[in-house]
């Protein structure tokens, strides 16, 4: 006897062996439905992606390349120090010299848009997952899926939804790059010392306040590491983004593959590498207390501290002067023991 029936517009066949299911038909049907239902949404999203991308691209390509390099080197000096500044300048000059400057700027813009979008998704999702085990149980396999599903597979529906251009490139990049952002945010929030959270609770802080004043600040290193990873993964997607028509360093790479042009391939490929290293070092230095900026900040803090301490000391002297009977009695504790 046969077990065969129709389900969701396809024929399911269970017996006799081997069974077959029309999974492809289902997926196609699903995306058809998806496209129709969310057409307006994706059109809007596409416009947003393109607008933001164009804006950032315009800003980044506004200064002449030498001015950009100068600014980048100075920024590098402040963020990390002299060595990094020199390295940044040399790497960028290399990109200019091999004629990939415009592509590099486009890639940078694409990475920035994708990172922005991925961060906007990753941080709230990560926080939610950290606070809710059920969400976490759902998010974990979803992130596995996004990270391991071959990029070309979702590139096809992305193309169908957006058409050729920068938007599907950004979407594919976001999908691929969002996972570590979510994971490291969740990990960071969950890893916050339980006792410190208990301290917040014990003094009567609301959950929102604990999140803002305790969990997020203490999880910041982990969250920053997540954003750093998002940026790095975004960069590794530029080639694939280039295939669907997004401008940038993916373009020449694709071209090099098609024309077997090793020279062009390495010029563009090394440009990606340099861009990646520069972006990685920049983001990794956030909050590490490196570079000129940290030195200046330290000096400023020192001055402020001294001033504040002087103010406090003055206040104490004043307090002692005209409040012999303060609300709290002062023990004869000696500070020398401290």
């Amino acid at each position, binding site marked *: 006897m046969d077990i065969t029936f129709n389900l969701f517009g396809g024929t399911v066949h269970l017996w006799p062996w081997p069974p077959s299911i029309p999974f492809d038909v289902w997926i196609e049907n699903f995306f058809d439905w998806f496209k129709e239902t969310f057409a307006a949404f994706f059109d809007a999203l596409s416009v947003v992606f393109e607008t933001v991308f164009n804006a950032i691209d315009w800003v980044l390509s506004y200064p002449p390349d030498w001015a950009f390099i100068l600014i980048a080197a100075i920024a590098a000096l402040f963020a990390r120090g002299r060595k990094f500044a020199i390295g940044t300048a040399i790497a960028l000059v290399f990109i200019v010299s091999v004629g990939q400057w415009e592509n590099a700027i486009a890639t940078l813009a694409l990475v920035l848009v994708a990172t922005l979008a991925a961060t906007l998704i990753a941080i709230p999702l990560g926080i939610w997952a950290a606070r809710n085990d059920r969400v976490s149980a759902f998010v974990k396999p979803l992130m596995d899926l996004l990270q391991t599903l071959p990029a070309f597979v979702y590139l096809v529906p992305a193309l169908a939804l957006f058409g050729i251009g920068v938007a599907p490139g950004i979407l594919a990049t976001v999908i691929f790059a969002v996972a570590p952002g979510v994971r490291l945010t969740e990990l960071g929030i969950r890893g916050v*010392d339980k*006792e*410190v959270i*208990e*301290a917040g*609770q*014990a*003094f*009567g*802080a*609301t959950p929102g*306040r604990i999140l803002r*004043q*305790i969990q997020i*600040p*203490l999880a910041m290193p982990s969250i920053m590491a997540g954003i750093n990873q998002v940026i790095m993964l975004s960069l590794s997607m530029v080639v694939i983004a280039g295939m669907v028509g997004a401008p940038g360093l993916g373009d020449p790479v694709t071209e090099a593959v098609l024309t077997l042009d090793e020279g062009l391939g390495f010029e563009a490929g090394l440009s990606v590498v340099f861009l990646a290293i520069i972006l990685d070092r920049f983001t990794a230095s956030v909050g590490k207390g490196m570079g000129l900026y940290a030195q200046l900040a330290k000096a400023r803090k020192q001055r402020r*501290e001294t001033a*504040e*301490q002087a103010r*406090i000391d003055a*206040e*104490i002297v004043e*307090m002692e002067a005209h409040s012999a009977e*303060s*609300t*709290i*009695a*002062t*023990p004869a*504790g*000696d*500070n020398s*023991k*401290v």
Partner: protein
Amino acid sequence: MNDIALKAEGLYKVFGRNAHDAVKKLQKGASRDDLNGATAAVIDASFEVKKGEIFVVMGLSGSGKSTLIRMLNGLHPQTAGTVTIGEDSITGVSAAELREIRRHKISMVFQHFALLPHRTVIDNVAYGLEIQGMPKEQRIERALKVTRIVGLSGWEEKYPSELSGGMQQRVGLARALSADTEVLLMDEAFSALDPLIRREMQDQLLELQSELGKTIIFITHDLNEAMYIGDRIAVMRDGRIVQIDSPEEVLTNPANEYVEQFVQDVDRTKVLTADSVMRKPFATVHENSGPRACLQAMRENGISALYVIKRDRTIVGWVRDRDILDLVRKGEKSISGAIQHDHGAVSKDTPLSDLFIPSLEAALALAVTDEKERLVGVVPRVTLLAALGGEPDAAHSAEPVVEPLPEAVVDKILDSSAEKGGL
């Protein structure tokens, strides 16, 4: 009723599935081991903490003490039972009400300090006030005062990571004190500190307590610490409170074998005081009695010296048999010439550790006086030794070793003086 700061009644905390069934089973007398996978951390804990008291909950790790203290401010919701702080119940109230109680009635000091690392000392101290909604200037002013009280003046603008462990815990203490709550929970607050700092913090806590009069519930696994700071101690084992008593009672009257074993390692010289080991004074003489009566009393008790007291039992001094003997020989009628006034009596609250030197210096069993300087007992050296051995009963039965004059000598003197017609 009004002097009760915190009251816990029938508190249970069971983790795992079917927690409420497990509580019912426990209430019917089931043991902790047959609960079908549920884990009972606290079983039927009931106690009252008086205002201004230091109540210590003592137990080894896994005894449920940390869970218990966290139920007192609702960090762990109880499975069954009630907790009342002052007039407010914290069990069965909404989250918002609970937060309100935590802001104003009860604060907490943590084992690993739990400071906010990204905030300065002063901002950490002001944290509770910030949550209470106090305006910035006011809370900083108050935090400054408290920071000074705990001895951290000059460190206000530092970050916790720049401070030593002891100083960090002072910040933790200041944070709890500045919230100005009646009840203070301290969860192993000094356990992470090294011994010298720990003792210093204990002293400071006692000092603060006597000045501020807070109600403190202190968790520790260190019995010496419990004995040192506690007004009363609750000993926990396997989730149950097995004894609630004063430190001395726990030491001298352990409720069961477990507590007894536990207290074996305690430095009893720091906990036990003179009045817990003293014996009834041996015969004493009145300052107006004559030398012969005095000598008689010594001979009857087989001792070589006596305390001389007034009618209201305050100590005048002491006399030695040899001096009395001289008086008898001289035919004196009063012993006043032989009284030595350096009696070295100690007050009955003196810990044993402070009795050794006086005991060595005293010519006879150390006299113990009450607050009105009246003689209430004596501590012979042998008693002191017996108490150290952990056998208070042995201390009472131990015979003092004294070397009175040979009886023959005394008799001869008494007889000879009788022949002379004296007395």
